[in-house]
């Protein structure tokens, strides 16, 4: 750094004074203003303590991975590929790793050409690279509401304007999306991409219905828009039939000559194997892929060959019956997470009050619970952390404005042992009752919090929204499916005969 910046007063190793900081301030890019810490994030950092039961993480349970297998795979990498493991690799990723990705994509029902893949440093890097490639300051991204809390700082850092569309039980309502797109067009603004997590959405826990998936891909084609399909949990389905990826629906349309034309797919090994590997990938239309590749060169040249080779070795492993071991491990994870989800749903029914609602995800890692509207979950977290030693993600973290979602919370069940889930939910329920009791005393309305209720009160909630929309129940009837997620927090819409109805399938 230039001497004139480190400046007077500070000796070697001195921290900058306020004056010097002001001088740095003038050198910072404007976009750093969007990169802000927040009091809420500071508070959440404090929940990462061993004496806190944290339902806040986005964590899979890595304790289930056999240490002997880890040791064996690492030894194999060392024995066969030390020099390659320690060397730079190709930016797009190593062929042996891309082969594994092709297998995962096949398991997702999405056959791909290995030439369409780029290996990334976690799925998070795909979000970053897609923004880096597509977003100029002020450009519009359309996302779900709530959306993945980890995408919020990325979108902010690239100074994107984010339009969030409230989900219901079947994910993002596409007619709402179209209304937003119409409005944006009228304002002379064209969104760059639509960001969606169609399966077991983070944080919402809901899954986008097949009719909506189809319609979303059509809308993208009608309007020449890209879709960023974030699918970390697709293979972690605990019941029900898998739905086709947006990528595969796009490819079926044939516009891309058998490849996806407008869908940028994001996948990751984080949830089916390990987040510590920091390996994800994108499958993208070739022109986009080239730009992502250039963007990645500038970011980190390549993802770690050590972990790429680890994955390649892992995918060679077979069970006694000849089945790929990674699929066996996936089954093991699904059994574990399914049982933990059930424990969480039972605990919620037992300990959360009447005013609470929550999603019942068919897969993934999270339940989204919405409490009595008088509760602010950011404040609730402060008290829960302090008096009960339990943590969750306040709903506001999933909204760009940091305000909406104030009565909701994201709860992770996958990375937490059953006993801790029970105890954690019990403790949160206790704090909720205390707050509602206090509220009742203050308003003279008495406590409304005493009676825990079962979750299956979906019908009472579904009357709260009555926008012009398709009835998803009807859509379900047409596709011959049972309702996807018996969701309480995201009400299904009422049936009506709106003109938009046909479009929302």
């Amino acid at each position, binding site marked *: 750094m230039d001497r004139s910046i480190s400046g007077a007063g500070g000796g070697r190793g001195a921290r900058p004074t306020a004056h010097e900081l002001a001088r740095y301030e003038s050198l910072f890019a404007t976009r750093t203003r969007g990169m*802000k810490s927040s009091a809420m994030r500071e508070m959440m950092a404090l929940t990462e303590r061993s004496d806190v039961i944290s339902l806040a993480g986005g964590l899979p349970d890595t304790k289930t991975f056999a240490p002997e297998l880890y040791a064996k795979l690492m030894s194999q990498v060392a024995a066969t590929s030390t020099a390659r493991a320690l060397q730079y690799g190709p930016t797009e990723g190593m062929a042996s790793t891309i082969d594994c990705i092709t297998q995962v994509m096949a398991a997702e029902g999405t056959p791909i050409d290995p030439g369409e893949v780029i290996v990334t440093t976690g799925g998070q890097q795909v979000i970053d690279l897609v923004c880096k490639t597509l977003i100029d300051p002020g450009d519009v991204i359309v996302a779900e509401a709530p959306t993945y809390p980890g995408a919020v700082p990325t979108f902010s850092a690239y100074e994107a304007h984010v339009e969030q569309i409230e989900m219901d039980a079947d994910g993002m309502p596409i007619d709402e999306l179209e209304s937003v797109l119409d409005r944006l067009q009228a304002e002379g603004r064209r969104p760059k991409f639509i960001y969606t997590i169609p399966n077991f959405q983070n944080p919402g826990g809901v899954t986008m219905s097949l009719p909506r998936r189809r319609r979303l891909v059509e809308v993208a084609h009608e309007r020449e828009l890209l879709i960023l399909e974030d699918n970390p949990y697709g293979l972690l389905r605990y019941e029900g039939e898998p739905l086709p990826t947006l990528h595969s629906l796009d490819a079926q349309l044939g516009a891309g000559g058998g490849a996806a034309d407008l869908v940028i797919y994001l996948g990751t090994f984080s949830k089916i194997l390990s987040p510590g590997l920091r390996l994800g990938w994108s499958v993208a239309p070739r022109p986009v892929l080239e730009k992502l590749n250039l963007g990645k060169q500038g970011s980190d040249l390549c993802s770690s060959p050590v972990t790429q080779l680890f994955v390649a070795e892992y995918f060679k492993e077979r069970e006694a019956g000849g089945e790929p071991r990674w699929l066996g491990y996936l089954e093991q994870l699904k059994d574990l997470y399914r049982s933990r989800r059930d424990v969480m749903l039972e605990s919620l029914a037992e300990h959360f009050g009447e005013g609470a609602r929550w999603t019942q995800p068919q897969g993934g890692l999270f339940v989204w619970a919405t409490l009595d509207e008088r509760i602010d979950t950011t404040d609730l977290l402060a008290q829960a952390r302090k008096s009960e030693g339990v943590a969750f993600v306040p709903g506001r973290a999933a909204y760009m404005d940091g305000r909406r979602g104030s009565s909701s919370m994201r709860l992770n069940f996958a990375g937490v042992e059953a006993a801790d889930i029970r105890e954690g939910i019990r403790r949160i329920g206790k704090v909720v009752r205390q707050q509602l009791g206090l509220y009742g*005393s203050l308003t003279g309305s008495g406590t409304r919090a005493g009676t825990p209720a079962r979750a299956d009160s979906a019908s009472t909630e579904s009357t709260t929204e009555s926008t012009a929309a398709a009835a998803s129940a009807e859509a379900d009837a047409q596709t011959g499916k049972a309702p996807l997620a018996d969701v309480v927090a995201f009400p299904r819409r009422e049936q009506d005969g709106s003109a938009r109805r046909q479009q929302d399938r």
Partner: protein
Amino acid sequence: MSSPGRVAVLKGGRSLERNVSLRSGAHAQEALTRLGHEVIAIDVDEGFVEQLLSAAPDAALVALHGPDGEDGTLQSLLEAIGLPYTGSGPAACMCCTDKALAKHLMRGAGIPTPDFHSLEESWIEQLGAAQALPSVERSIGFPLVVKPVSQGSALGVKFARSSEELPGALVGAFSYGSKILIERYVKGRDLAVSVLDGPEGPLPLPVVEAVPREEDFFDYESRYEIGMTTFVCPAELSDEQTARAQELALSVYRLLGCHGVARVDLLLDEQSGELWVLEANVVPGMTETSLLPQAADAAGVGFDELIARVLESAFTR
């Protein structure tokens, strides 16, 4: 302590201000090292006393913010151990940490502080204190501010524009502490005056103004959000206003029995031009962007000298 010695820097803790405290502590440690002291950094957590006793320092520099470090408990403990420590003693800490107590004392001494009432959470259930709220509303008026008496995180500060908003603001503020303050909202400029002890006794430093980057008076959180505020030092005030702010800060420092260093937060009423004292902080932040180092810098006191003077306060009690 002008000759080099062993100094324990006490930081971290478990409050919402943990991260700020860790940064303050790290910043102070570097200065102490440059001053030639041997530094022992201690995160105030389980095993703290054992760690402190086995380190056997000559003095402790308190960089622990929030109730953990500012409510007098830590200071009492250090006195029990017989270890010299920086800053105010237990009584001043107790007064400053309890914003309601500090305001009662200020009001009694004729120092202007916005009208207020305090409320204990248990009173609401046990004594039916909610019935006193209408009279509190009448006496303070809307809009009003609700905040826990003893913590410094912006998260706990709530705003109510009407009777309907008050219960929510109260429940929110009680999430951060069992005793809260309901205070008249003064619309105006945020000022801070730090007072630093020195050879000529305690002296007020130049006034710092905190200017929110985006004006949103009704959103306290964004107002106090890191990076949402810029600081001006010395604040652009008339000589008269500056002198008055400094005089008030020094009076508060003396009134509450502060020692070594303290920061007094004030508001300059945009309508009346009057200055109001909100609170005093006995362990002011020492991070790169904290108000005390900025004010000291503006007074020609570099960070190392600031830390040297703070350390000296351990031996001048």
